[in-house]
């Protein structure tokens, strides 16, 4: 049972790595009412996301208390979980969005975020 779970986790990890950034860019267009890569908007910017603690993007003041309390650190797995159902993963988040329910779309989106993850020099 445990072996099966570990194998499944490994397969998920492989899938995340196999995401298509170009397809992910199209998925990211759904985020553009509130987010951008380079700028804080209604939501925080997405550059510098990987390895960052949730609720801690420098200069973004509008985080919910729930997000700041979540203790999540953004990586492929936490992003996959959050994006699949933001309100279930972080109840009280202001990202009031039903989520990206298609696993392949999430994988592609995460690959795009990872590819575009470097913040421009300021």
């Amino acid at each position, binding site marked *: 049972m445990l072996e099966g779970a570990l194998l499944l986790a490994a397969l998920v990890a492989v899938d995340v790595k196999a995401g298509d950034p170009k397809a992910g860019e199209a998925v990211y*267009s*759904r985020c553009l*009412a509130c987010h951008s890569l380079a700028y804080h*908007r209604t939501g925080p910017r997405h550059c510098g996301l990987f390895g960052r603690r949730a609720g801690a993007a420098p200069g973004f003041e509008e985080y919910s208390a729930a997000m700041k309390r979540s203790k999540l650190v953004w990586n492929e797995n936490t992003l996959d979980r959050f994006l699949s159902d933001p309100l279930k993963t972080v109840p009280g988040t202001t990202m009031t*969005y039903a989520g990206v329910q298609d696993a392949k779309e999430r994988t592609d989106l995460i690959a795009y975020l990872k590819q575009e993850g470097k913040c421009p020099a300021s």
Partner: protein
Amino acid sequence: MSSFLAISSPAQARRLFLGRSALVLSGAAVALLAGRDVLAAKSGKSTAADVRILNTALGAELEAIAAYQVGAESGLLEKPVLALAVQFQGHHKEHADVLASTIQKLGGKAVAAKSKYQFPVESLKNQADVLRFAAGLEKGAVSAYLGAVPLFANRDLSKAAASILGDEAMHWAVLRNALGENPVPSAFVS
């Protein structure tokens, strides 16, 4: 396909746009948000969650208003396109007003516009850049409302949010058309 940008007469272009877009937000849907006192009577955890959704939508609407202002003041828009941008901005103002009043009716505190917004103004070099930027925001707004509609505990709010979604989708289609792109690229939005 006719492109707005390829039309020489501004009047003709404007007629084409306005004729195609039927830009009228459902009065019934607005009433659902703004005029029904039954909303005020509801309270509790689910209402707090609904207020949170409305406030996120309001924040995005306020930012859209600011974005259209940047476009309008850019000096890059031809007169009929400018008129269209101002009209779309007016819709976003109506959305914001009705969202804010609904939040207040539900006992919440409406978010205020930020004192400053950051937009990629350095990449806006011509009219098409402005239209493409606006189209991206409108497409994102469609997706945001689509992701919010199923979350409301109050189904009246879902219906009203869907009405705003429809308006944003029309904006997106008109802007795509202005760019010479297929205005309705697929049978479904996501």
